């Protein structure tokens, strides 16, 4: 039998040692009505047939250059990222409970925590969360715990799917959520009431626009609330970090750092906070310490916040997070360094700006996003964006994601440093045809 080492002789000998004669005997104590239910599954395949089948399935998808965003974009990934992340020691380890045999993963997490703290300009980061949306939900729950309040205000500039996930989590604990509509492509100034525990803003926001939320952070703090910022980690190579803009909590989607598009996952979410909020963080944290002989080592710390100890009083129920995706980001950031990351960020933003100018030349296309923006922007199209997206796909491009919440015929676009001038021109030509026809 595949992927198990037992010979018939092994099985017989082991059964004999247990006083049994057949494998079925291992289930003899289960209620008989439950045993061996009829289950229809396809016949097994060998490896080669499996890959053939999967290639056929993959062939039913249509490849193309990706000009789509929503916080997940087609960025450059150094080859060394795959090499490291597929090392069996990293890939096939569990959560590093046994520190002495897990220094590799633990140190890598410590390095990751450092990098996220550096990027966000905040004091501490945890070891990762599932994705940007659940990171936002955890960040807001953290703010509610810290302020002992149950009301949240979120800007419409926050990713619609993140807002949806946030609503699910808040509904669960009985907290309430208000939305502030965008004024054009920016979050307007608004008064923060005394019962608000968290104010949530995203920059660059879902329309790509860079938001300056320093004044909003001040208003939040004056009301005793915390400011939670949703940020694009790549943009932080060049843009002012949330820690400097007054955010208490920064969260985001980590995909742009070394993780492929992957049809939306697995990626990872990140969260960073000010020192005062450290003990409110959900999930794993790794601390540097020493062993009995004074050697430096790393260990999971502050576990008493976590579900396996605190049970119903834990900060979150999270256990498995997204370590291998976070490891990819760690290696990615190390391989690019500050200069390389800055080059990629600027390259993506410059490509997006160039594409914006090109697409605006099409008749009937109007900007919904105004500069400055980072790697994504929204346009109003002269026809149904879903149709435009379909026509673009036929020409070998993926772009024009319909975002009806932001206006009739509104569509989202993105570019990255991977697109050459020729790529941008080719996409623009296909776009002209799609919106013109």
């Amino acid at each position, binding site marked *: 039998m595949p992927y198990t080492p037992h010979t018939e002789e092994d099985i017989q000998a082991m059964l004999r040692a247990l006083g049994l004669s057949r494998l079925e005997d291992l289930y003899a104590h289960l*209620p008989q009505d439950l045993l061996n239910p009829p289950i229809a599954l396809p016949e097994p395949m060998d490896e080669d047939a499996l890959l053939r089948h999967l290639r056929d399935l993959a062939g039913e998808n249509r490849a193309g250059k990706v000009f789509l965003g929503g916080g997940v974009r087609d960025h450059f990934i150094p*080859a060394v990222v795959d090499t490291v992340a597929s090392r069996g020691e990293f890939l096939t380890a569990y959560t590093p409970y046994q520190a002495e045999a897990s220094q590799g993963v633990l140190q890598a997490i410590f390095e990751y925590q450092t990098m996220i703290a550096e990027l966000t300009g905040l004091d501490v980061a945890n070891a990762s969360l599932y994705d940007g949306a659940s990171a936002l939900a955890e960040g807001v729950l953290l703010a509610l715990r810290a302020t002992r309040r149950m009301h949240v205000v979120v800007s419409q500039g926050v990713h619609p799917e993140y807002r949806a996930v946030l609503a699910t989590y808040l509904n*669960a604990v009985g907290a309430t959520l208000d939305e502030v509509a965008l004024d054009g492509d920016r979050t307007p100034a608004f008064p923060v009431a005394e019962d608000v525990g968290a104010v949530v803003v995203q920059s660059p926001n879902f329309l790509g626009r860079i938001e300056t939320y320093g004044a909003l952070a001040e208003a939040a703090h004056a009301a005793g609330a915390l400011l939670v910022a949703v940020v694009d980690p790549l943009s932080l190579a060049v843009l002012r970090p949330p820690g400097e803009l007054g955010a208490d909590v920064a969260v985001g989607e980590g995909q742009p750092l070394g993780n492929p598009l992957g049809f939306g996952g697995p990626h990872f979410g990140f969260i960073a906070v000010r020192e005062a909020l450290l003990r409110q963080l959900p999930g794993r944290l790794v601390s540097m*310490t020493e062993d009995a002989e004074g050697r430096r080592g790393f260990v999971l710390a502050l576990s008493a916040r976590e579900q396996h100890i605190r049970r119903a009083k834990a900060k979150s129920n999270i256990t498995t997070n997204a370590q291998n995706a976070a490891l990819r980001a760690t290696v990615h950031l*190390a391989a690019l360094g500050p200069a390389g990351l800055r080059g990629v960020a600027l390259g993506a933003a410059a490509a997006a700006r160039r594409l914006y100018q090109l697409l605006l030349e099409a008749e009937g296309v109007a900007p919904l996003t105004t500069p400055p923006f980072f790697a994504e922007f929204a346009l109003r199209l002269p026809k149904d964006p879903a149709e435009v997206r379909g026509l673009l796909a036929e020409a070998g491009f993926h772009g024009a994601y319909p975002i009806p919440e932001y206006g009739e015929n509104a569509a989202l676009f993105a570019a990255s440093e991977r697109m050459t001038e020729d790529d941008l021109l080719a996409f623009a030509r296909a776009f002209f045809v799609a919106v013109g026809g």
Partner: protein
Amino acid sequence: MGFCWPDQVPLIFERSRKGRRGTLAPRREADPAALFGAENLRKTPPALPEVDELTVLRHYTNLSRRQVGVDTTFYPLGSCTMKYNPRVLEEAARLFVGLHPYQDEGTVQGALRLMFELGEYLKALTGMDAITLQPAAGAHGELTGILVIRAYHEDRGELKKRRVVLVPDSAHGSNPATSAMAGFEVREVPSDADGEVDLEALKRELGEHVAAIMLTNPNTLGLFERRILSLTEAAHAAGVQLYYDGANLNAIMGWARPGDMGFDVVHLNLHKTFATPHGGGGPGAGPVGVKAHLAPYLPVPLVEKTPAGYRLVTDRAKSIGRVRSFLGNFGVLVKAYAYIRLMGLAGLKRAAALSVLNARYLKELLKKRGYRVPYDGPTMHEFVAQPPEGLRALDVAKALLDEGFHPPTVYFPLIVKEALMIEPTETESRETLDAFAEAMGRIAERGLADPEWIKGAPYTTPVRRLDEVKANRRPRLRFGHRE
């Protein structure tokens, strides 16, 4: 025996040299102030390491050598199902990495078909009527499942009175934590002398105030709840929903189904049972299957099959909403799909049976070497042992590291003192189990004879026991923190 470890590895930041460059990445000439406005620019760059690519590769390769995984050693971590995952699954997942979740549905039909078919397989294997693949991990699936139950009670106007979730005292900590996140009060139900749920005690707790019961079956002692049918019947009679924590499904896949036992909701840990490596702590995936009466409450989007092809459905009035962005951890779903296609039903059943055979065989070997098994019933894929009187579980675990084995889960479940929770999985050979038992025997013998020795273990690992008090009193969570 023992491992071969590299020496101390400095932090990547300590290898940084100003002006050193790594991978050559694409770039474009651009003026940041013109692009973003000077006021939006970061004044000082983030202090990321400046290292060359070989240094990066060597650094992380050497870190990996200070790490054990299933690829390097036997890893019998109870409740975690650390089995070998066929490597072809990694290759399978790579076939789909170029897709963007916002592509036109017509361009991702293969991916949607895979999701739909996987959903059908998992429904068949669990005996459920509908499924969501969106949750990103087991605990995320738990939250999703409990919110579905919550929405069901709310819809029926019963949420105000149904405020309690019952969990056995042997449950995973995530169960009570999840219930609390969903706003429920948690009450523990005791286990009986055999280690199964105390059915009479449970029945006394049942009533109109109870929303759900969360159970793992086989439970965390490795025991199948033999009275499960009476249990679920009594719960349903009181209007209580039954939640199945799928962490231990590996023991019974194909042999028995939660749906047939009377469960209304089940989450699966695809990264345990369905062959995705754990990655040092994820990513995983935690699909949630439900019976038909709960289907309207599942999160959106769901994949639907229509005559015109596969599509994503988002407009469902009673849905709990979204629990994750996009479509969940699709890459993990590909591996689960591929694993099921590779194994077929017969292969899955055989894998389950061999996981039980291995665990039972190992249990007998350990009993012969002085280890105690307090709930020694017909255990399945895992069992909970205690060291011989006078030894501590933690010390045995640390001594195992010097023997070249990853230790079992320790101090869980909470109802067994000095617990060693052992799950060998089906992919380990008889020789490995024999060698592990020999090592456990040596440790017990020497540990009893030489208490100082075992308290000092491990001796051969890259670091010895770490100062956790220091790490927790004054945590240093990043380079330069508190220095």
